[in-house]
């Protein structure tokens, strides 16, 4: 189907007319995204009776709006209290929380909101324009290429924990091995489950995330009266609307950063199974590798907030591309949407663009509208949200513990998961205190199962011959890019050394 301006204008007007569905979905999505343990998939499953009873177009608009808003909401606790609301916001903690500690929570929140909204907007528009072509991308990225994409994620471990790359790698590979707990994908034989049936499906991500970030952070923060530095506290207490404007200016000055990292999210989102967590980390790493000031990353650098937030919202439209174009959901939330669409008798795939173009394109147009509503809903709240950082730790730590430990229960409804969160909390606390980055452990746990799936699939195709990993032109290009990503920081240090301004890699 070719370009049809009249159809798109009609869809835009129809989506705007559904504001009464979009606004509650956006508000609910932001709340859900900000509560660790809950995500769009959980809530859409819970709300299935509601969405199934709606007209298919409205149901789709509701689900897409809620889904987009959860990706934005996840960044709020990541910035304010160092606890990502969703896995996709884990990378945001690296610089977002450091900005909060310096008393720049308001700017960090505005950066997060602007990056999320514009990242989502740009990619949604791009998808509307190029949907039939983008759908082909999923056909070219097979297991071999995916192994290399996963390895991109692995290199982040060393780069993110660059204070001591070796410790970063140890933490990352420790996480990868934890991610390999559970039954194998071919014969379903249990591995390293300590005899717990609850671990047969692998280590659940939410308790790991809550333990490593929330519980360990709460245990660590009690040594101080507030989470802010002295200068940061003084600055936060006198914060005005000007800080929101400043955040807006910082974000708009970095428009190019915002655009290209959003497209990283879009491309990774199109790959079934990859998702926001990987997209955010890849975008963070690539942003750092190609930055003129890589040494500022991890210290409260605006680019370190923009890159992951823009990418994880770029994913939202990306995951829906294979769903609409070839009937393969790009992620778990897309799978729930697929159930609703199939219930209504919608046949997904190439025919959808011819038979029901208002649905195929309508979902992306409604995402554009949802993002527009989102920025006006959330931006004025940044000033008030940033006040959370001023709450004394004697209240903040119990609040974090109370809300997040129960959040560990929510996805699978096992008490076991709450205990698991505590164990990860203790591991995370030791890691924090001894310089092993908890983010590196989490990346490992996220990537572990995916890496195994693609690696074993590739090796089975080649009957165990590892040369298959270097057999694809696209894969080889990705290998070369991976090598550049690893070597570029060392080259920069070498060049700086020659000019007498030497510094350590990543320090």
């Amino acid at each position: 189907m070719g370009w049809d301006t009249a159809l798109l204008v009609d869809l835009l007007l129809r989506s705007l007319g559904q504001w009464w569905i979009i606004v509650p979905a956006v508000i609910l999505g932001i709340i859900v995204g900000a509560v660790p343990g809950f995500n769009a998939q959980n809530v859409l499953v819970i709300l299935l009776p509601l969405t199934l009873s709606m007209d298919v177009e409205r149901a789709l608009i509701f689900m897409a709006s809620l889904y987009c808003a959860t990706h934005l909401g996840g960044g709020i606790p990541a910035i304010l209290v160092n606890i990502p609301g969703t896995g996709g916001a884990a990378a945001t903690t690296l610089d977002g929380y450091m900005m909060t500690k310096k008393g720049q929570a308001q700017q960090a929140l505005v950066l997060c909101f602007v990056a999320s909204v514009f990242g989502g907007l740009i990619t949604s528009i791009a998808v509307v324009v190029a949907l039939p072509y983008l759908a082909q991308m999923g056909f070219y990225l097979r297991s071999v290429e995916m192994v290399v994409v996963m390895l991109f994620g692995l290199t982040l471990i060393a780069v993110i924990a660059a204070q001591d790359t070796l410790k970063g790698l140890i933490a990352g590979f420790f996480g990868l091995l934890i991610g390999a707990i559970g039954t194998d994908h071919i014969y379903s034989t249990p591995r390293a489950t300590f005899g717990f049936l609850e671990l047969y499906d692998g280590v659940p991500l939410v308790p790991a995330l809550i333990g490593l970030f929330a519980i360990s952070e709460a245990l660590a923060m009690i040594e101080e009266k507030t989470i802010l530095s002295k200068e940061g506290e003084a600055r936060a207490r006198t914060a005005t609307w000007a800080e929101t404007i400043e955040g807006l200016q910082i974000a708009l000055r970095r428009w190019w950063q915002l655009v290209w990292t959003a497209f990283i999210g879009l491309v990774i989102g199109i790959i079934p199974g990859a998702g926001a967590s990987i997209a955010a980390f890849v975008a963070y790493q690539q942003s750092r590798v190609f930055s003129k000031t890589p040494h500022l990353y991890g210290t409260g650098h605006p680019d370190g907030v923009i890159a992951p937030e823009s990418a994880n919202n770029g994913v939202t439209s990306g995951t829906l591309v294979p769903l609409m174009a070839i009937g393969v959901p790009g992620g778990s939330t897309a799978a729930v949407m697929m159930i609703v669409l199939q219930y209504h008798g919608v046949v997904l795939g190439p025919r959808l663009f011819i038979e029901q173009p208002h649905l195929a394109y309508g979902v992306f147009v409604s995402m554009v509208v949802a993002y527009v509503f989102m920025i006006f809903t959330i931006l004025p709240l940044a000033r008030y949200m940033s006040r959370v950082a001023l709450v004394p730790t004697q209240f903040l730590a119990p609040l974090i513990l109370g809300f997040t430990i129960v959040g560990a229960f929510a996805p699978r409804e096992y008490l076991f998961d709450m205990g698991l969160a505590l164990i990860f909390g203790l591991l995370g606390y030791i890691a924090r205190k001894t310089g092993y980055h908890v983010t590196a452990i989490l990346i490992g746990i996220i990537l572990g199962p995916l890496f195994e799936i693609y690696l074993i699939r590739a090796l089975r195709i080649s009957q165990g011959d590892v040369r298959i990993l270097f057999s694809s032109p696209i894969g080889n290009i990705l290998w070369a890019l991976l090598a550049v990503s690893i070597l570029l920081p060392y080259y920069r240090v070498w060049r700086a050394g020659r000019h007498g301004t030497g510094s350590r890699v990543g320090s």
Partner: protein
Amino acid sequence: MPDSEAGKQGKKALGAELIIPALAIGFTVYYFTTVWDLSWEAKADGLAIGWILLALIGVYLVKTGACLWRGEASLSLVPLIFPLGAQAQRLALIASIVVFILALPYLGFTLATALFMVAAMRILGVRSPKPLLTVSAAVAGGGYLLFIAFLDTRFPRGPIEHFLRWFF
């Protein structure tokens, strides 16, 4: 002891930094024992990651050993132990989390959460009854509304949930 002997001498305290590698070695060995006899598809990924992990830890131990040999570091656990005052609060918080998880099936979500909040705030030094009661009631009440009344998650029900069922 505000400063350790090692700290006074300007040595790096590396003892605590060996805890994660020790845990990693223990877990890797355990992982290997559970996959050793399985088919290659089931163990290839874990073995590859495990051997790389052991190699990385080996390099780290050599590096640490060299620091100790040169007298630049000690095996002190200072970063993990101090400040001692916060350590007591931390242990009490961990104990209260354990009690919270164990009591949840019996007390139900709302009552257990409220009691946990009171205990955690008391441990961290909140003495005034007004914030103790209002904050814990707000968290437990908000949690009840969000998780049970609205999202209908299957949190363990207790006396408060059974009572409130008449209203929601």
